[in-house]
């Protein structure tokens, strides 16, 4: 998984490494925005700091030419809902007088198992569209992770992309600095779109996307401290507290299982048998009773859920532990909120079946039967 940095956090990291960024201030109120623009001057960009792609199109970025426009932009953006996230901070940034807009990015190419540097002269627009419609417009160079990005490679990819010759060396050295940041911070991807070439032929990082591999956060205390809870809804926040891999969907059949592949398969079967999955919830390997109970609490907290299917194929997860957790969770209710279908297979499944309180749950022997029954339950409850 990845930890997303805000634009302002990424730009702080860039600036420290010597990458030029526009002068800016972070503001969380209209007054602070007005103080910031007074110092920075006009034009100024007011940019929402939320973990959402396509902020500009969604109205999260505005350019102010004067005081009135700045105040209006601050009032519009602060507090607005941007694709489910509330904007509580904006970056107020000096406008840049530019002649060219470039795209520069570094990401992990999973099929090669190597990082890849990407450069394009078609910056400032949706790069995924460029990649689809005109893939040749993006020059790419794979990087040997043992040695890093050699300077000759940086020059090569810059020349291939057709960067204006007067700034080519500068862009190449910009790219090598960026790869150093990518490696030293365990980034999963860095994207600057656009990189602006000013009328004075200087290079400035006008935007900044930087995501960190969160499996590597243990060796980056400074980055870990920047992590902020960013969930799309309260349920995902709750899953974060419980430490579950959880994704909310729009259906009404709640799904709990162990192992990503099997949980995905359970979702697919709910759909296949005419139901609609409410969520993906993986309790992981070797879950104990408490974790199982937390999973049920999690799914019952989703008001859309009309029925639950619990599908466990134990390898390191033990059926008796799962049964204990289900009993504990359900026995705490005066009335079971929604019907629960349980299917236990694998390690200690027989012991689990003996423990399981079958007054509280419906038991099925196969995956297909369990899913079909849960789908039927959901249809009955929702009628």
């Amino acid at each position, binding site marked *: *998984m990845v930890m997303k940095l805000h634009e302002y956090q990424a730009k702080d990291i860039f600036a420290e490494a010597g990458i030029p960024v526009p002068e800016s201030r972070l503001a969380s109120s209209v007054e602070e925005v007005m103080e910031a623009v007074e110092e920075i001057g006009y034009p100024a960009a007011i940019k929402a700091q939320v973990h959402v792609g396509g902020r500009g199109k969604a109205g999260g970025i505005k350019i102010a030419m004067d005081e009135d426009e700045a105040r209006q932009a601050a009032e519009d953006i602060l507090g607005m809902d941007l694709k489910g996230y509330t904007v509580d901070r904006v970056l107020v940034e000096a406008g840049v007088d530019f002649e060219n807009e470039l795209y520069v990015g570094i990401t992990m190419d*999973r099929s090669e198992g190597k990082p890849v540097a990407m450069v394009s002269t078609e910056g400032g627009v949706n790069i995924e569209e460029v990649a689809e419609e005109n893939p040749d417009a993006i020059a790419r160079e794979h990087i040997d992770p043992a040695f890093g990005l050699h300077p000759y490679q940086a020059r090569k990819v810059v020349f291939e992309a057709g960067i204006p010759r007067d700034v080519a060396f500068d862009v190449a050295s910009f790219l090598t600095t960026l790869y150093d940041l990518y*490696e030293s911070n365990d980034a999963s991807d860095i994207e600057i779109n656009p990189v602006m070439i000013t009328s004075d032929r200087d290079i400035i990082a006008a935007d900044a996307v930087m995501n960190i591999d969160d499996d*590597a956060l*243990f060796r980056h205390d400074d980055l870990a401290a920047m992590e902020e809870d960013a969930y799309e809804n309260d349920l995902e926040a709750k899953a974060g507290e419980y430490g579950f891999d959880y994704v909310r969907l729009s259906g009404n059949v709640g799904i709990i299982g162990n192992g990503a592949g099997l949980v*995905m398969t359970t979702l697919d079967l709910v759909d296949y048998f005419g139901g609609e999955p409410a969520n*993906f919830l993986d309790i992981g390997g070797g879950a104990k009773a408490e974790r199982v109970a937390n999973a049920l609490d999690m799914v019952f907290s989703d008001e859309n859920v009309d029925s639950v299917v619990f599908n466990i194929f134990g390898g390191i997860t033990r059926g008796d532990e799962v049964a204990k957790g289900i009993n504990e969770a359900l026995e705490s209710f005066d009335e079971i909120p929604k019907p629960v279908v349980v299917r236990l297979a694998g390690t200690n499944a027989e012991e689990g079946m003996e423990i399981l309180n079958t007054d509280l749950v419906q038991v099925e022997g196969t995956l297909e039967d369990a899913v079909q029954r849960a789908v039927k339950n959901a249809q009955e409850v929702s009628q």
Partner: protein
Amino acid sequence: MSIFVDDDTRVVVQGITGGEGKFHTRQMVEYGTNVVAGTSPGKGGQDVDGIPVYDTVEEAVDEEDANASVVFVPPAFAGDAIFEALDTDLDLVVAITEGVPTQDMAKVNKRLSETDTRLIGPNCPGIITPGESKLGILPGNIFEEGNVGLVSRSGTLTYQVVSNLTERGIGQTTAIGIGGDPIIGTSFVDALEAFENDPDTHAVVMCGEIGGEDEEQAAKFIAENMDTPVAGFIAGRTAPPGKRMGHAGAIVSGSGTGTAESKISALNDAGVPVGDTPNEVADHIEDFL
């Protein structure tokens, strides 16, 4: 016959004194795996259930003639442990650990390309040749000796499909979980190629999932190079774009690559039937045999 592991596999368990390492070493030994040594830096000279513990993999190879390792080392140290195994010229390294930093794996992957060692994983359940040897955490009792090869990204989905096969009396030559991370050692293509060259494997199950393009590459390989029939399953048909479904690698990108539809149609185009349910996969295999 079988692929990658058999009775002759001599295993060193890296991280044998940890909770996971100790527990699964017992399970492996109980299954019949020839575990000859363990490593745990600083604990050389001790033993776990009579299995000698060494400080380094090199000593385990020199003293006990180990030719394969299983890695149960925590994620922060797993990359280093895999490097140690690769630098000792083992035939096979199976990395169970989940959560190895991706850039560590990129460096491992580079070193791997310079060696003759096979790496399976990380973030995988391991590999089993029923009746002979298992390296990893797969529950041995659901497997049976037979003629079907199985390769899968996911552990528990493997167990599901295997139980659908075993219930019908269809056994397995070897089953491999290749792992759910973006960068892994053994790919679908590597495993399929080995099954194709194994005369005892008469049919193969391939269980893929959303994310990346490995399944599409596997489909191409099957169409061009395989006579052994293959049946497939793809998990994640209902996964929304941009959301990681548990596995670090299981994500349909915003631009729409890595979808289940793309993988299923690539497999179908290669003549591979894809089951709508795990049980349907077993139906297809039964038809092949």
